[in-house]
């Protein structure tokens, strides 16, 4: 039960992050929100594993964390290439 509550709580955080991602306003806010969303997903999966008593999903959580990180780095590398003054919103 506690896991369920925790999962719900994490979902709430994810929702907040998602809202920030939609709202922006700057591209960095979005990236930040995406990153936050990703790490919360990692936690959610971990909790979910315990919730369903199949904790061997943790590999997926590791993958998520990894992919999230690489994704963020890729986004930042992309943003770096943009010429000044033409930031996307």
């Amino acid at each position, binding site marked *: 039960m506690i896991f369920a509550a925790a999962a719900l709580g994490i979902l709430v955080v994810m929702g907040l992050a998602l809202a920030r991602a939609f709202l922006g306003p700057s591209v960095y806010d979005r990236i930040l929100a995406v990153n936050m969303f990703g790490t919360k997903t990692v936690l959610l999966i971990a909790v979910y594993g315990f919730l369903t008593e199949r904790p061997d999903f943790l*590999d*997926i959580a*590791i*993958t998520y964390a*990894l992919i999230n*990180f690489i994704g963020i*780095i890729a986004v930042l*590398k992309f943003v770096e290439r943009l010429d000044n003054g033409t930031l996307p919103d």
Partner: protein
Amino acid sequence: MQRDFVLRIIAKLLIPYILLFALYVQFHGDFGPGGGFQAGVIFAAGIILYALVNGFEQAVRLVSPRILPPIAAFGVLLYGGVGVVSMLRGGAFLDYNLLAHDPVHGQHYGILLIELGVGITVASIMLTIFYAFMERNR
């Protein structure tokens, strides 16, 4: 070279573990989630991280794009080879039962090998694709 070293150092620290994790996923696909495809992608992702952080020239020195297509071809052929061997042993294509004396062992070997083929192909192809995009980006 000295700019942005935080990222580079952490990445370099992490990448061997990422690769090892990928290989873990590769070889434990039988027991848990994962398998050749996921492993291949993660392996490629590890190298991609390196390429992102260190730039194309440096990444090419780590893994040359020229060797990748042959590796990918090898992966497909490994997969197909398992099928061909099972065919030569008198079974149908990809009938792993015939790969060992015990069918279940045969299945196990067969699955390991073809997963390996998938992993090799996927990793090298993903990297090839990424390199191709990155090269244009220079």
